[in-house]
């Protein structure tokens, strides 16, 4: 779990000259994060997003994720499961949409045959 803290340098990378300073600031950040707990998480996360918007890398090479909570870290993609989902999903969508349209057409035909035609000619 890591996030670019506003107290650190912009990129979050540790350069040799700034290493000791950043280390102290990181400790301070951690303490601050624990103190502020949940309410502060949005602030730190927004800082991460802002860093990304500036075109800077969000994930340094030695880190796997910038997510603040564990639950926010994306699951690994299982190709087999993905293939199965992609095989079934269009079929399910077609069945759902087909059923809806079929009901609509049946309603139209029922009114056409049982109401409209018996009412006779007009023109």
């Amino acid at each position, binding site marked *: 779990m890591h996030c670019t803290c506003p107290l650190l340098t912009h990129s979050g990378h540790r350069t040799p000259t700034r290493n000791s300073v950043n280390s102290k600031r990181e400790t301070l950040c951690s303490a601050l994060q624990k103190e502020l707990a949940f309410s502060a998480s949005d602030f730190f996360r927004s800082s991460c997003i802002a860093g990304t918007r500036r075109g800077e890398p969000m994930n340094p090479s030695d880190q796997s994720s910038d997510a603040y909570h564990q639950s926010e870290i994306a699951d690994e993609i299982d*190709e087999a499961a*993905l*293939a199965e989902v*992609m*095989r079934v999903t*269009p*079929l399910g*969508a*077609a069945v759902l*949409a*087909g059923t809806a*349209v079929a009901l609509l*057409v049946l309603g*139209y035909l029922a009114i*056409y045959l049982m109401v*409209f*035609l018996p*009412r*006779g*000619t*007009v*023109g």
Partner: protein
Amino acid sequence: MTDRPAEIHEKRILGTELLWAFGVGVLVAATLSVIVFTALSRDINPPSNVERSDPKTLHLSGEFAEHNLGTTVGPDGRVTVRIIATQFMFVPRCIAVPRGREVTLRFASPDVVHGLLITGTNVNTMVVPGFVAQVHTEFTRGEDLLMPCHEYCGLGHSEMWATVQVMPDDQFKPGPDGRVSCAQR
């Protein structure tokens, strides 16, 4: 060269979308076919007539003068009904029509836009001042039908309605002047 899984997925989705587009095309074609079939085989069409009238002199002279309103049977046996839709009544308030014969309904308005329908039939049209609304139809059930105004025309709109009296052919007998009224029954 073997396709990557992502390409296979995209092809599958594209295939589904094309199939759906084909199905929708078939449905649209079927709906249009039903409309054309109905028009040709059952003679059911939207009423269409462009014929001008002068709202200022509508009730004074011409086809819609007072003495000419109501049901008339022509020398050729054609039944024509002329009605004025005005705020807030139809004139006349009751019209007699034969059962099982073609009837031509002609409407005109001297004031504002009105509309009408005849319950239990497909008769449904607007009556716009300055134009004659014309509907051809055939009444198949012998009963009294309600003909309300269905276009809001003012405070008395809800009171604007008339009765269509559908008569069996043996009771539908025109007088010497070729006119038929509801009082005959």
